């Protein structure tokens, strides 16, 4: 480590990137940047959740897939599928044979990418940080939060995301 290097925990790195992504999103800045930053933060938070023996979003998504389709997809394979659907892959990979254009709903991709990263952040650290509250507030008002909560009440208990440590913080 050189004299100008500092040691950072990955929590700090993921938090800063997620905070920046939400700031860009709420200020209607570049959505491609939101997608990339939410993906980077989400990737780290997912593993941190697993390290903390919490259930990361991807594992929850696999359980939901199993409930609907009666088959559990491989975690890596399903994560790859989600990354393609959310435009993450086409934003940071380009092989020799890839086309130079892509068809995307950037707003939908940015919103869904942020939702995944925020989900893992809340699982780990709760929802009291102002930038998390700001995002949740935005989604409540812009994605019909009341209706979603009503639908959520009817979900079988075994399909609610498992939380071991932070139940009280997330109430």
């Amino acid at each position, binding site marked *: 480590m050189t004299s*100008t290097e500092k*040691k950072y925990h990955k929590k700090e790195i993921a938090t800063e990137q997620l905070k920046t992504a939400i700031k860009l999103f709420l200020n209607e800045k570049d959505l491609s940047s939101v997608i990339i930053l939410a*993906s980077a933060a989400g990737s780290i938070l997912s593993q941190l959740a*697993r390290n903390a023996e919490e259930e990361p979003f991807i594992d929850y998504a696999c359980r939901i897939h199993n409930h609907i389709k009666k088959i559990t997809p491989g975690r890596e394979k399903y994560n790859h599928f989600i990354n393609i659907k959310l435009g993450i892959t086409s934003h940071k990979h380009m092989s020799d044979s890839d086309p130079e254009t892509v068809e995307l709903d950037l*707003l939908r991709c940015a919103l869904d990418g942020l939702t995944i990263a925020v989900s893992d952040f809340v699982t780990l650290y709760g929802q009291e940080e102002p930038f998390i509250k700001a995002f949740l507030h935005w989604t409540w008002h812009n994605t019909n939060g009341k209706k979603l909560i009503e639908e959520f009440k009817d979900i079988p208990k075994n399909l609610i995301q498992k939380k071991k440590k932070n139940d009280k913080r997330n109430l």
Partner: protein
Amino acid sequence: MTKETYKLFDLAANQLETAIMLFCSGDDKFSVITLAGAADVIFCQLVTRIGQDNFTKIISKEENDPRSIPEVGKDINDTLHINALKHLDPGEDEYVSLDADECALGAILKAIANYNMLEGKNENLINGFRAWAQINLDLKKYNIN
């Protein structure tokens, strides 16, 4: 919310512009590195497609590096900690040591080097960074015109 068709070049240019905006305003350097790094992946491929040597290949040739281009590219990216800021593998150390300012500057310079080789570039995109560099950097050391 509707689907539209985008050029990857434009999506990458927007990311580089955001990275420069964050950098010049003294904002989150981790995001600068991630954004410039992601944009550069697209620029590298587009430079190769027009038959030119990208930044990594130029460095490899100048240094007579015997390694493959992907190996040199990975080495550069690891030096800039681009991968460490977007991944955490099972069993990997949860801490990383880096000079965030220096890595952010390096990631932007590398992306600009490739961006500048491409047709359709917008000079205005890098003007802010150029102005910042003239005030804050040794231009000869960093090879900036």
